[in-house]
C-alpha cells in the first residue's frame, strides 16, 4: 500500500527525470563548478591554486582589456538591441500584410536564421571585404566610396552590427505570431473610426505586443552580450581590438591563454551584469508592458462608460 502511494507520487518525477539529470549535470553542475573555478588560479596542466578574490581584483584593477572589452560590448548592445528590434518589428509588419507571395518573403527573411553562425561569418567576411566586397561595389554604384569595413577600426563595429542584424529572423517570427494573434475586429473598429494605419500601429499593435517586446528585449540583451562566433570569425576581435567583445575576451582567456580560473571570473562578472540589466528591464516593465489578462477588468469598465 505504502509502496503504491510512493510510486504514485514519484511517477511524474520519473517522467521529468531525464530533463532534471540533464539540467543538473550539464547546467547547474558546470555553473557551480565555474563559480568555484573563478576563485582559483586554474592552469590547464598542473594543480589549481586557491587565490580567493584574486581573479576579480586583478580584473578590476590591473586588466586594461577588461574595461575596454566591457565598453565595446556595452556599445554593441546599445546599438544592436534597439536596431535589431526595430528591424524585426518592421519585417514582422511587412510579412503580416495581405500581399501575394508573402509566404515567399517570410521564408526569405527567416532563412538567415537557419544558416549556421560560421557560414554567416564567412559570408559577411566576403561581403564586407574592402577591396572586392559586394557591399562596397553596390555603394560604388551610387557614388559612395565605401570604407574598409573590417580594416578601419571606426567602421568595424558597424560592420559587425550589420552582419548580426542578418540573424533577425527568429525575433521577427515571434513578433509575427503575436501580431497575427491580434483580433481583426479591433482594427476594423479603428478603421470605422477613421484611424490611419500609423495610428493603428501605435495605438493598437504596439500596446498589445508589449509583452513580446519585453521578451525580445531581454533575450536580445542577453544574446548581444554573449556574442562570440561572429566576431571570432569575422574580425577576430580586430582591427586594432576594436571589436574585441567581452565574450571573445573570456573565450580567449580560457581556451587560448589557458587561464581557466580567470576566464570563469570574467564569465561570472558578465553573468552579474546581465542579471542586473535584466532585472532593470523587468522593474521598468510594469510601466510600459500591457498584459491583457491584468488590465482586462479596467478596460471593460472604460468601454462600458462609453
Amino acid at each position, binding site marked *: 500500500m505504502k509502496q503504491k502511494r510512493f510510486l504514485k507520487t514519484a511517477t511524474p*518525477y520519473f517522467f521529468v527525470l531525464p530533463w532534471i539529470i540533464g539540467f543538473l*549535470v550539464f547546467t547547474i553542475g558546470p555553473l557551480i563548478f565555474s563559480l568555484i573555478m573563478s576563485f582559483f588560479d586554474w592552469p590547464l596542466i598542473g594543480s589549481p591554486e586557491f587565490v580567493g578574490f584574486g581573479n576579480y581584483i586583478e580584473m578590476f584593477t590591473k586588466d586594461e582589456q577588461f574595461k575596454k572589452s566591457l565598453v565595446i560590448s556595452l556599445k554593441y548592445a546599445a546599438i544592436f538591441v534597439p536596431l535589431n528590434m526595430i528591424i524585426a518589428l518592421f519585417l514582422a509588419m511587412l510579412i503580416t500584410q495581405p500581399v501575394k507571395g508573402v509566404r515567399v518573403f517570410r521564408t526569405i527573411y527567416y532563412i538567415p536564421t537557419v544558416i549556421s553562425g560560421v557560414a554567416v561569418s564567412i559570408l559577411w567576411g566576403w561581403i564586407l571585404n574592402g577591396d572586392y566586397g559586394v557591399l562596397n561595389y553596390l555603394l560604388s554604384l551610387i557614388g559612395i566610396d565605401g570604407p574598409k569595413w573590417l580594416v578601419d577600426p571606426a567602421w568595424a563595429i558597424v560592420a559587425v552590427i550589420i552582419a548580426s542584424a542578418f540573424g533577425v529572423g527568429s525575433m521577427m517570427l515571434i513578433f509575427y505570431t503575436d501580431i497575427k494573434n491580434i483580433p481583426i475586429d479591433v482594427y476594423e473598429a479603428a478603421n470605422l473610426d477613421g484611424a490611419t494605419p500609423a495610428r493603428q500601429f501605435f495605438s493598437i499593435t504596439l500596446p498589445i505586443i508589449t509583452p513580446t517586446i519585453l521578451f525580445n528585449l531581454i533575450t536580445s540583451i542577453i544574446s548581444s552580450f554573449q556574442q562570440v562566433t561572429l566576431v571570432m570569425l569575422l574580425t577576430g576581435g*580586430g582591427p*586594432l581590438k576594436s571589436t574585441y567583445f567581452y565574450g571573445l575576451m573570456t573565450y580567449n582567456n580560457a581556451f587560448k591563454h589557458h587561464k581557466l580560473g580567470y576566464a570563469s571570473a570574467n564569465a561570472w562578472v558578465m553573468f552579474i551584469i546581465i542579471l542586473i540589466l535584466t532585472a532593470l528591464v523587468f522593474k521598468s516593465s510594469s510601466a510600459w508592458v500591457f498584459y491583457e489578462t491584468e488590465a482586462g477588468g479596467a478596460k471593460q469598465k472604460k468601454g462600458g462608460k462609453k
Partner: protein
Amino acid sequence: MKKKLVAMLALTMAATLAFTGCGKKEDGKTADGKTKVRFASWDTAEDADAQQAMVDKFNEQHDDIEVVLEAYGGEFDTKIAAGMGAKDTPDVMYMWNYPAYAGGLEPLDSYMEEEGEGYKDNFYETLWDYNSLDGKVYGIPIGFTTHALFYNKDIFAEAGIDEPTNDWTWDDVKEAAKAIESKTGKKGFSFQMKPDPYDYEMYLWSNDAAYCDEEGNLDGNLNSDKSKEVFQMFQDMAKEGYAVATEKSGTDEFRAGSTGMYVYGSWSINSFNEDGLNYGVVDIPAFKGASHDSVSILSSSGISMSADSKNKEAAWEFIKFWTSEEMNKERIGRELPVLKTVVETEGIMEQPEYVAFYTMLEQSSGYTPASFIIDTWSELSSDLSLSFERVYNPSALEDVSAVLDEAAAK
C-alpha cells in the same frame, strides 16, 4: 513533500552515478582483449577519412593493438586541454604547440634511442628544433611547411622584368614591385596587415634580430635597430604604394592575380595548381646587411604520446608506424615528407614548386621561436599582434620605433 524531494534527489543521484560510472570501466582494453590506443587528430572531412583508412591498415597488421581514431577537428585544442585537465588524454595525439602542452606529454628520446642511430638522423635536422622543448623531444615530425616567396610569372612577363631568383634581396623585391606597380597598375608585393607574431619572427631572424634573448627579455631585442629596420621596410613599402597590406594571408589576392609576389607557406600550392596559376617559388629574399641568408619559420606538426598513457609500448608502436616511410609517402599531397629518404626516392626535389621549401628548411636550423622561450607567449602574442597591426593597418600606420619601444617595455 520533504520525502518526495528526498526520493527525487536520490533518484537523480543514482542515475547520475550510473551515467558517470560507464566512463570509468575501461582500462585501456577493448572487449576482445586487445590493447586500445586512442589517437586524436585535428583533421576533418577527407583528411580524416584518409587517416581512418591508414589507421585501419595498422589495425589489420596488429593482432594485439587496436587504434581508435578520434577526429577532433576545430575543437582539437579545447578537447586536448580538457583531456589533460581531467587526466583523460588520448594515448597518441597530433601536436604542434609543445610549450603549452609539454607538461602532459611523454619525452620520446629513450624510445628513439632504442630504434638505433639512423632513426633520428633520417628526419631533417631543423624539425627537431620545433618538436622539442628544453632539450627533450616530445613529438615525432609528421609534416611541416617553411615559407617561401611566391611570384606570378604572368605579371612579371607583363611588366617585362626578370623573375626572382634564390639570390634576391629585399632591395630586388622593392625594385621589381615598383616596376610592376608602374607598368601594370597591380600591386607588386603583398604582406599581411596582421601577421601571426609566431610566423613574423622569421624576418627578424633573417636580419640578425629576434623578439627576445635566451632569457626571454624583449627590451633591446624586439626594439633593437635591426628589428625596427624590418618593420620599417615593410611599412615603407606599403606607404610608397607598390605593396599592399592584406586583410588575410594574401593568398586570395595572389590567386586573383592582383599582386605579383607574396611570402607564404606551402598550404595553397594545391589550389594554385588546380587554378592553373602560372607561378614560381623561390627562397625568401635576404636582407642586404645581414650576416647570413634568409631564415624561415616552421609550421610543423608532430605526433606525441600522452604522459598518462597506460599503453605506452603500444602507443610507440603506432607512432613508429605513423611516421614510417610508408606513411610519409601516403601523405604526399597533404603534407611535405619529413624523411630524407622519402624526399629522395619520391623525387620531391625535382618538382620546382617544392624545392624552395626544403632549401628554406635546411637553412633555418638553430633558431628557437620566442613561443618556446616565453611562458606567457599566448598573451604576448596577442599584444604583439596588436602592435604589428598598429604599424601596418592603413588607418593607423603608427611610428615603428614608438610602437616597438612601447611593446618591449610592457
